């Protein structure tokens, strides 16, 4: 039972939900259903969808591998300049599309800070699927870090202290106490990161390029379709929305600690 939900808040909540739901419904109503099947099963659409799913999944894994430690460092330790680091980590959220791509080019591009190092090592990032994954990871990482950090802070460190007094090493505490306790936040963060990676557009376009089957993800395909056929673009957008919805409904199950 809950005791802190005044009734007037429900009205505001309903208005807020409608504000998001209506445009999605409105978009659905614009779809030309007679052509929908053909549009979303075209070779280009299928290739883009598959590429999107593959790259978004890989980005999500990268986000988990690097994002969870980042959240842990931000939530559980203190170091000079911590607030600045947190703010910088969140910056990809604010970068408009294109600018993120320019930033990535300046570092991982052929003439970027690290580009020559990579070139020497024989790693070719330019115009490859790797570039897409990097772009998506860049924009999705903040989502994961944020979710996990918030959950870590809220769950507090008391159980970790108890585990340590019972003889558990930091590794054991991390594996058997911290991770299971923040699992809801972790799953939520991973779903968000996946969703954000799935919708990534600007950085991919600028950094990775747009070639069918290699770098042209579904958002890029949508954008391109729009040049000639707005209906096709809306149909593809609906496909993207449907995929995102399925993933979210299937996995996003945040739970409290009670």
């Amino acid at each position, binding site marked *: 039972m809950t005791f802190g939900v005044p009734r007037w808040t429900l009205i505001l909540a309903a208005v807020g939900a409608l504000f998001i739901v209506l445009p999605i419904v409105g978009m659905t109503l614009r779809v030309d259903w007679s052509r929908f099947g053909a549009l979303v099963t075209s070779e280009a659409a299928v290739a883009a969808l598959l590429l999107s799913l593959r790259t978004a999944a890989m980005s999500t894994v990268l986000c988990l591998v690097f994002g969870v430690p980042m959240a842990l460092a931000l939530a559980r330790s203190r170091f000079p300049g911590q607030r600045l680091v947190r703010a910088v980590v969140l910056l990809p959220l604010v970068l408009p599309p294109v600018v993120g791509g320019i930033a990535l080019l300046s570092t991982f591009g052929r003439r970027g800070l690290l580009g020559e190092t990579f070139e020497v090592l024989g790693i070719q990032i330019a115009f490859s699927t790797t570039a897409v994954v990097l772009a998506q990871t860049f924009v999705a990482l903040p989502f994961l870090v944020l979710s996990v950090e918030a959950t870590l802070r809220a769950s507090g460190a008391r159980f970790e202290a*108890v585990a*340590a*007094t*019972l*003889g*558990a*090493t930091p590794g054991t505490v991390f594996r058997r106490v911290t991770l299971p306790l923040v*699992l809801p936040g972790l799953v939520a963060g991973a779903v968000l990161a996946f969703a954000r990676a799935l919708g990534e557009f600007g950085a991919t376009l600028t950094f990775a390029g747009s070639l069918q089957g290699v770098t042209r993800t579904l958002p890029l395909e949508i954008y391109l379709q729009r040049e000639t056929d707005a209906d096709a673009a809306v149909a593809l957008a609906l496909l993207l929305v449907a995929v995102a919805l399925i993933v979210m409904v299937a996995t996003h199950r945040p739970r409290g*600690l009670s």
Partner: protein
Amino acid sequence: MTLELAAVMRRRGLEVAFTVSPGETVALLGSNGAGKSTVVELCAGLLRPDSGRATLDGQVLFDLAAGGAGGGGAVRPDTFLPPHARRTVLLAQEPLLFPHLSVRDNVAFGPRSAGESRAASRRLADEWLSAAEVSELADRRPGRLSGGQAQRVAVARALAASPRLLLLDEPMTALDVTAVPAQRRLLHRVLFDRSVILVTHDPLDALALADRVIVLQGGRIIEEGPTRAVFAHPQTEFTRALTFGLDLSAGPAMPGGGPDSAPIIGV
């Protein structure tokens, strides 16, 4: 397993120094806010003193110069052993059972962390659960326990970790009256050959379980000595109030003792 401790923690107004001999059980007494929990948390490594030194069996638990954390010019570098490396176990004042683990896995946590196999840890856990008379709760999640049940499981979890130094902060809280004698018997059996610091408000617990008592007040030790001696000749107001109505003429108070050996407390 000798504990030698001297510590100053200004934020809590604490300044203490004492020793616990191998196999000895020391009861930590004192009024609310006297610093009892602070002392055991310092021993466990959950708190860092401003300065002081503690060794367990010769191993340094902490050794901090008065200059403050990481003080500059000290020749001897500061040492602070993290809790997991101390092989001390703390039963805190709140049960704090891991909410995501079953009761059995909570109790098996200590043995598992000490490197026991999964099966062996579970067997150990079941033994301790049965010693604490809560075997039937083994498969529950902590969220579905009553207050006293949670406390019993927390005791079992602390005992199962079989530490060099056991730190018990009010282990009898929330236990029902039929459980207290059994719990006291259990502790007596377990504490027998270990070094233990036992925080309690109940003089009977001290009498039944402790070889020696240390009385804290405002963060300082105000009285110290063998249990029966301190209780027979209380030197401070606190111990007088504590032992007020406690009849020490009878034989040593032992778990399971009959009514004739029973001391008396005033209401």
